């Protein structure tokens, strides 16, 4: 395998992806990601000089609209999905650690 994923890299990816991995998951992820990157490295066979990166199949422009209040009061429906609420607010655990 050409791409050896280090513990540091997996640690970093875990931070970016906001995932905490068990020891077993971490080892599996190193293997899987290394294999996938080996495969993706196939793209390096291609000379892409002069090819502009294409994010969408067609040229898309930003679509603007007036910032108008249009929706009804969906507060109760939305809060019904909240894992935890306090009155009309979403409740969250402590933001600052003690």
């Amino acid at each position, binding site marked *: 395998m050409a791409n050896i994923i280090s513990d540091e*890299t997996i640690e*970093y*990816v*875990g931070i*970016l*992806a*906001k*995932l*905490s*991995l068990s020891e077993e*998951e971490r080892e599996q*992820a190193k293997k*899987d*990601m290394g*294999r*996938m*990157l080996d*495969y*993706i*490295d*196939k*793209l*390096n*066979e*291609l000379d*892409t000089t002069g*090819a*502009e*990166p*294409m*994010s*969408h*199949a*067609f040229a*898309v422009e*930003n*679509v603007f*609209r007036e910032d108008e209040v*249009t*929706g*009804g009061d*969906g507060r109760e*429906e*939305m809060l*019904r*999905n*909240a*894992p*935890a609420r306090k009155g009309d607010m*979403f409740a*969250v*655990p*402590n*933001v600052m*650690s003690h």
Partner: protein
Amino acid sequence: MELLTLSAVELGAAIQAGKATAIEAMEAVLRRIEEKEDALHCYITIDKEKALERAVEAQRRIQAGELAGPLAGVPMAVKDNLCTAGMPTTCASRMLGNFVPTYTAEALRNLERAGAVVIGKTNMDEFAMGSTTETSAYGATRNPGNTEHVPGGSSGGSAAAVAAGECFFALGSDTGGSIRQPASHCGVVGMKPTYGTVSRFGLVAYGSSLDQIGPLGRTVEDCAAALEILAGAGPRAGQGEAASGDMPGEGEGSPEGIVPDRRDSTYLYRKDTDFTSALKKDVAGMRIGIPRDYFGPGLSEEVRHSVMAAAELFRGKGALVEEFDLSLVEYAIPAYYTIAAAEASSNLERFDGIKYGYRANDAQELHRMYKQTRSEGFGPEVKRRIMLGSFVLSSGYYDAYYLKALRVKAMIKKAFDRAYARYDCILGPVAPTTAPRLGQSLDDPLKMYLGDIYTISVNLAGLPAISVPCGEDGNGLPIGLQLIGDCFQEEKILRAAYSYEQFRKDGQG
């Protein structure tokens, strides 16, 4: 009348003619579900009572003359990544196990306005990431043709439900083949329109530059009729009245008076969406290209044989069929998985346990809560793609991986442009093999990804494509034929697919 043998459009016509009712149709479907669902598990959510209530209401409006469309009163299934107001929408993930949307996806609203009646929500790969419907947190769906095999994926529940008569047609989403491949594996028709044809508002995003909603049905005509309605053709913002305000049957909680199109900035407001007018049995003079690179190693002999027999049939009917080199086919999968993973990692950041969905309940601090929630809420395949996506977007790797893939994507699009200068349609297989056995794909993700080779470049280039049944393997498992058109050329692939389907029905193929 044996309603379950009818196509969606035939049923719609029977209902309009007063020979059947929406209620009878729903009862027939629910009975079929009762018989088969234990063995197949096509659905994640079905509320029979509410489905019947909706059918009663549709029938009332049909009789009152308020609904006269081709799919009015016809029971349909909806992939569980399309938001449904008041009905759970799980994306087959533990993360959204208890999520009930406050609004309905725009594409589905178009169909509901036209009178189609929702039965329930179909099973899928978790967040549409997978090709077998086995990554669902709620258990696998089985192939109606042989329950030892998968139905394909990610819209496997929708494809299996159509094949088993557990609905008359269904909605799916296609990011890399997720409509066409399960349609092929289950022996039904599945269509992915040109990127931007159907509003993605209310579709839970996976790879936003690739995702498109489309229909699965028993016939090409059913798919054309459904797509015509899905595409909507709403008024262009600023050019007309608000599209929703005057429509009856709005989902509760949906904002009134907004021009819906504005909420998906990639929606193209197409006016050329009269897809059913393309259904003509005539391929004389049609230029069809067969990419030699779609018939290389890895393609099963039985699939090759069926697809080539279909090509011969087209030739016999006067189409100009020839082989050509598309090029770059082997680079589509690595480019696709880089881009799709990158977009997935960004799109799935929203699942943080704050406003909806799963929350790990023992975390005492915010940051730890995020991590625990996501680690417990997502399954292995989703985590794998989020991690890969985070990596290819991270500083130091962004240019080498993500931008490189976008450059390759541009080259793939150019290769298709060159092909469409010469051909009306590209013809090839949908998948290299028929449906694999359950459990065969999960232990080797890369192998599963390789099965997407004929479908994913279509998403990279934004093209329309359709999968039509063209045969069976030695075990009776269906084989699909793929017809790929240039952007906005749905009409050509629909005409080719419809013609082929009719020739086969005549016993000529």
